[in-house]
C-alpha cells in the first residue's frame, strides 16, 4: 500500500487508473481542472491517452467514442460543464456505453462561485439528459479516500450495468488534502474490497436485448460483430426504429436493469439509529462530515439523534428510510433538493426539515441549535436557508 497526503482530484485520478481507465478527455474548469492535469501526467505513464477537448460536449463524446472502441474512459468537470454533457450523456445511456463522469460541484447557477462547494446537481445527476425512460447511477464521496474507492467502483458499475456512472463530488472533496492509501498489487486491491472487471465485447446479434439483466457485454466496434448503435430507439439488433413497441422495450431495459439490481448499487452509512432517534440528519458529500460530528456531539449531550449518510444517491435509497422521525436534510444549496426525496421516502408520521448552506459548510454549533429546537418541538428560527413549508 502506498500512503500519501493528497487531494481528492489525485485520488480520483489514481482510482481511475487502477480501474483500467485508459482515456481521459476533459475541458479545464475549476475545481475539476486538477483531475485533467493529473490525468495528463499519469495516463501516458500507464499507456493511456489524455485529450483536451474543444468543449465539454466534445469531451464526453470523445470518452464515449473511446469506450465504444473498447477503452475504459472518464471525464471530469463542474456544474457549467456537466450541463453540456447532456447530449453525450443521453447517447451513452441509450446506447448503453460504460463511461465514468466526475462532477466536482461548486455553488450557484451558471458559473456561480468557482472556488466554493455546492450541491446543486443532485437532481441534474438523476436527469442529466432529455427524454426520460432511464435510471442513472450516482455515487457521492465525502473524503479523499472515498473519492478513490468510489472511482474504482464507478468503473465497476459502469461495466456491469453498461451505463454512464456519475461521481458527484464537491469542491471540498476534490480540492481537499487528506491521507490517501493506494493499493499497489492485485492482492491489495482485493484486500480493500475493490473489484475491477475488464471490458468485454458483445458478439451480437442481440446488442440491445429487452431484458433487465446486467453483465451483458457492451457494444464494442471494430470487431466486425455487425453491431449497430445509435441515438435512435434500437431494435434488439440495434437497428433504428420508429415502432413504439421497441421504445417500450428499450425504456424497460434502461429503467429496470438498474431498479431491479439496486442492491448492487445502494451504499450508505448510518449512525445511532438503533434506539429510534427523534431526529435523523440526512446528508451526503462534504457536509456529511460536519453532520457526523454534530450527531456525535448531540449524543454526548444525551440527545436522541441519528444520522444517515448517502453514498449512492441514485437510484435513491428509499428503503433505508425505515425510522419514523424528524428528518433534517443538510445540503449545500438553498433551494432544497435532497429534502424532497427524503420527504417522499420517509415513513408516515415523519417530518422533514431542511438546512441549506451556500458555498460553505454548516458548523456543528448551527446544527446543534437546530437539533435542540427540533427535539424541543420549537419552531426553527427564520433564516435564509430555512423553508418552513417543508
Amino acid at each position: 500500500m502506498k500512503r500519501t497526503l493528497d487531494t481528492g482530484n489525485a485520488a480520483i485520478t489514481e482510482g481511475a487508473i487502477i480501474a483500467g481507465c485508459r482515456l481521459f478527455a476533459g475541458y479545464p474548469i475549476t475545481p475539476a481542472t486538477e483531475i485533467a492535469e493529473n490525468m495528463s501526467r499519469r495516463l501516458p505513464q500507464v499507456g493511456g491517452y489524455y485529450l483536451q477537448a474543444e468543449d465539454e460536449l466534445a469531451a464526453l463524446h470523445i470518452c464515449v467514442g473511446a469506450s465504444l472502441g473498447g477503452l475504459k474512459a472518464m471525464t471530469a468537470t463542474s456544474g457549467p460543464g456537466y450541463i453540456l454533457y447532456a447530449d453525450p450523456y443521453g447517447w451513452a445511456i441509450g446506447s448503453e456505453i460504460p463511461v465514468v463522469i466526475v462532477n466536482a460541484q461548486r455553488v450557484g447557477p451558471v458559473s456561480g462561485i468557482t472556488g466554493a462547494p455546492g450541491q446543486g446537481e443532485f437532481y441534474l445527476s438523476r436527469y442529466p439528459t432529455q427524454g426520460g425512460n432511464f435510471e442513472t447511477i450516482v455515487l457521492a464521496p465525502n473524503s479523499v479516500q472515498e473519492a478513490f474507492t468510489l472511482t474504482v467502483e464507478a468503473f465497476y458499475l459502469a461495466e456491469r450495468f453498461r451505463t454512464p456512472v456519475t461521481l458527484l463530488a464537491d469542491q471540498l472533496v476534490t480540492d481537499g488534502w487528506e491521507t490517501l492509501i493506494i493499493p499497489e498489487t492485485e492482492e491489495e486491491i482485493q484486500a480493500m474490497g475493490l473489484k475491477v472487471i475488464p471490458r468485454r465485447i458483445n458478439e451480437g446479434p442481440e446488442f440491445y436485448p429487452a431484458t433487465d439483466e446486467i453483465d451483458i457485454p457492451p457494444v464494442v466496434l471494430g470487431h466486425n460483430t455487425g453491431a449497430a448503435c445509435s441515438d435512435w430507439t434500437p431494435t434488439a439488433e440495434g437497428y433504428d426504429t420508429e415502432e413504439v413497441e421497441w421504445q417500450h422495450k428499450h425504456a424497460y431495459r434502461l429503467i429496470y436493469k438498474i431498479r431491479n439490481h439496486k442492491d448492487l448499487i445502494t451504499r450508505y452509512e448510518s449512525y445511532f439509529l438503533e434506539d429510534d432517534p427523534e431526529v435523523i440528519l440526512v446528508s451526503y458529500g462534504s457536509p456529511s462530515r460536519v453532520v457526523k460530528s454534530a450527531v456525535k456531539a448531540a449524543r454526548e449531550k444525551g440527545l436522541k439523534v441519528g444520522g444517515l449518510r448517502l453514498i449512492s444517491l441514485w437510484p435513491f435509497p428509499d428503503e433505508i428510510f425505515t425510522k419514523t422521525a424528524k428528518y433534517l436534510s443538510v445540503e449545500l444549496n438553498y433551494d432544497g433538493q435532497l429534502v424532497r426525496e427524503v420527504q417522499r421516502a420517509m415513513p408516515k408520521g415523519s417530518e422533514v426539515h431542511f438546512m441549506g448552506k451556500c458555498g460553505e459548510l454548516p458548523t456543528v454549533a448551527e446544527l446543534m441549535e437546530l437539533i435542540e429546537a427540533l427535539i424541543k418541538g420549537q419552531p426553527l428560527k427564520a433564516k435564509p436557508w430555512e423553508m418552513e413549508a417543508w
Partner: protein
Amino acid sequence: MDYLATKYLRPRKIPSTACSGCGLGQIHKKVVKAIDELGLDVGDVVWGTGIGCAGRQTFATWKGDNFAGTHGRVYALATGLRIALPPNKKIILTVGDGDAFGIGFNHLLNCARRNVDLTVIVCDNLGYMSTGGQYGWTTPEGYRTDSSPYGMWEPNWMQGGRDVLNILREAGATFLARHTSIEGQEAVESIKKAILNKGFSLVHMPYPCVTNFAERALGSRRPAVMYKWFKERTVKLNERVDEKALGDIYFRTGIYYDASNSRPEFAEALRNRVAEIQRRFR
C-alpha cells in the same frame, strides 16, 4: 440486387428508406464503390453517421459495424473511437450539411486541426430537408425554403467569396474534394483518395432533394427539374465558365486540396507520444 449491395450492405436496409428521386443513393453507392475498388472488406470499415437525411438513411446499412452519433457531435465521438481502434480500420462518416457545417462545425474544424484519420462524406441536400425543408448553411442565396419564404438572405458558407472547403483547409484538413452526386467515376476516385489519406479527409457532395428542396426552391417535385438544375451548376474546378451569366451558385467539383499523408495523423502521433513517455518511465 447490385453486386456492391450484396457484398457490403444489409438486405434489411434495401431498398433505401430515402424518398424516391433522392440523390443520396448516388452518393451512398459511390462510397461503397470506392471501398470495393480499394479492395477493402466489410470488417475493414466502421461506418458512422450523423443526424438528418444522410444520417438516418445510411445508418446500419453497412454489413459490418455501424454507429450514429448525436447531431453534429459524431466527429468528437469518432475522435475517441479513432484512438481506440486499430489504425488499419477505416472510419467513414456519411453526414449531412447541417450536421457538418452547422451544429457540428466546431467539432469538424477541431478534427481537421488534429488531422484525425476520418473520411467525412458530407451529403449536402442544401438545407434541413429531413425536418421538412428549412434553410441551412449551404442553401443558395435567394432560394426559398420553408424557413426562408422570401428567399435565403443569410450569408451561406458557399457564396460571396466564401467556401467552406477553404475554412477546412486553413483548419488543417489534409484531403478536400467536392463532387455533386450526379458525377461519375471522378467522384469515386476522389473518395478513394480520401479513404487512403491517413488523416482528416472530407468530400463535400451536394445532391438533389426533390421532395422538399426542389418543391420549394424550384416549384416542382419532378426529379428531372432538380437534376437539370444540378447538372447546370456542376462545373469542374478547372473548367472556364462565365459565372456571371448564370448569376447563381456553382458547385466547383474536383480535388480542392490534396496534402495526403503530409501531416502526422492525430491518433498515431498520440500513440507514439504515449509509447515514448512510457519508455522514459520504465
